[in-house]
């Protein structure tokens, strides 16, 4: 049901805007990026809950949120480089702050997975993952600042994207897209969480039977 809603929003919304293709991808790129931040933020919030309140579900929830975040992050990189290709004719632009930030975050959260898979499941893994997730959410603003500052010696001219002047319909479409992405995230999040929990239950039952 959720999926149908999302799909309809997906296909209806961009067609609503009668700009070129380059504008159209903006409706995907930016909401996906914002959803990516939301995922990482939610993951870090759950990580904090784990460390602070010892919430027994928080570790898995944090992991799943970050997993989704990496998926959305990869999509951001892909849509971002498509956008770059369309607007500037190259697949990668170092002047797009958001794109560079997502590259840094992509590297960081891949390391998160490496860390998680190198430790046996248990309280220690939960702690380490949570600490690293918190580092990630602090790294986002610090890196953003760093990337902004880096223009002063890497690029003499700072690009500013003219996306601020949005018309009413564009804004609506944008908001619908953002909402759709967030709903997509929540759905995928619930789905993966349910799957992971089921998996644990099955393994527990197997253990009981043997």
């Amino acid at each position, binding site marked *: 049901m959720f999926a149908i809603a999302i799909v309809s929003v997906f296909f209806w919304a961009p067609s609503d805007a009668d700009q070129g293709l380059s504008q159209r991808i903006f409706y995907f790129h930016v909401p996906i990026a914002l959803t990516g931040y939301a995922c990482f933020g939610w993951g870090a919030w759950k990580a904090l809950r784990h*460390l602070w309140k010892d919430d027994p579900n928080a570790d898995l929830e944090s992991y799943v949120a970050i997993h989704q975040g990496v998926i959305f992050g990869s999509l951001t990189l892909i849509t971002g480089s498509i956008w770059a290709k369309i607007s500037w004719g190259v697949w990668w632009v170092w002047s797009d702050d958001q794109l560079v930030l997502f590259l*840094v*975050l992509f*590297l*960081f959260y*891949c*390391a998160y997975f*490496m*860390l998680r898979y*190198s*430790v*046996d499941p*248990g*309280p*220690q893994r939960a*702690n*380490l993952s*949570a*600490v*690293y997730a*918190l*580092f990630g959410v*602090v*790294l986002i603003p*610090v*890196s953003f*600042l*760093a*990337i902004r*500052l*880096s223009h*002063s*010696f890497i690029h003499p001219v700072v690009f500013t994207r003219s996306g601020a002047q949005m018309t009413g319909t564009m804004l609506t479409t944008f908001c619908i897209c953002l909402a759709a992405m967030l709903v997509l995230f929540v759905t995928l999040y619930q789905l993966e969480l349910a799957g992971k929990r089921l998996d644990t239950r099955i393994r527990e039952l197997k253990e009981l039977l043997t």
Partner: protein
Amino acid sequence: MRYLSDVAALTRKDLLLELRAKETIPAMLLFVLSALTIFHFAIPRGSSDVAALGLLWVAIVFTSLLGLTRAFVPEREQGLMDALVLAPCDRSTIWLGKTIAVIAFLGIAEVVALPAFTLFFSGLTLKTVAAVALADIGIAAVGTLTGAMAVAGRARELIQPLLFLPLSIPVIVGGIGASATAGPKFLLFLALYDTVFVLLSWAAFDFVAAEA
């Protein structure tokens, strides 16, 4: 006071271990000199000084990585973290003691590396030196924490670079910025990085050191 004397005891231990083993510091020195030599051939003649300064920062981060990778090896090999966390001191002292030792190692490596850099490439401003000092603090603080995380898993030291390098990107930006531009903006940025990550690592170490 208690806190500081615990930190002193732990730092003393790390310095003593290095004095015995004589592994990390010689390795770091040799590495940084080799790196600078390689960089001489890597940058074409007529490149700007800024390019050379960029390579200096690359050399510093990778040299520190070499030291950081070894930081928790003595503890890991003997399961000694167990003995340390059972002591009645605040667990963050373990992190702080190690971080101070790492800063000392880095400092020694740089006492050689920075003059070597001026010899091989170009002169250094006082600002660059200040930036290096600020960067050392952040690098050691974050790297010691990720080092402790890395040795907890099966992959051991292998994932230390993966954990550490994304976190070091802002340090590189701040460092090169401080070397290449005027004004205190980048030094302030490095100081901000240090403050944020020192506090975060200090608070987080408790959870990294032990599961209970």
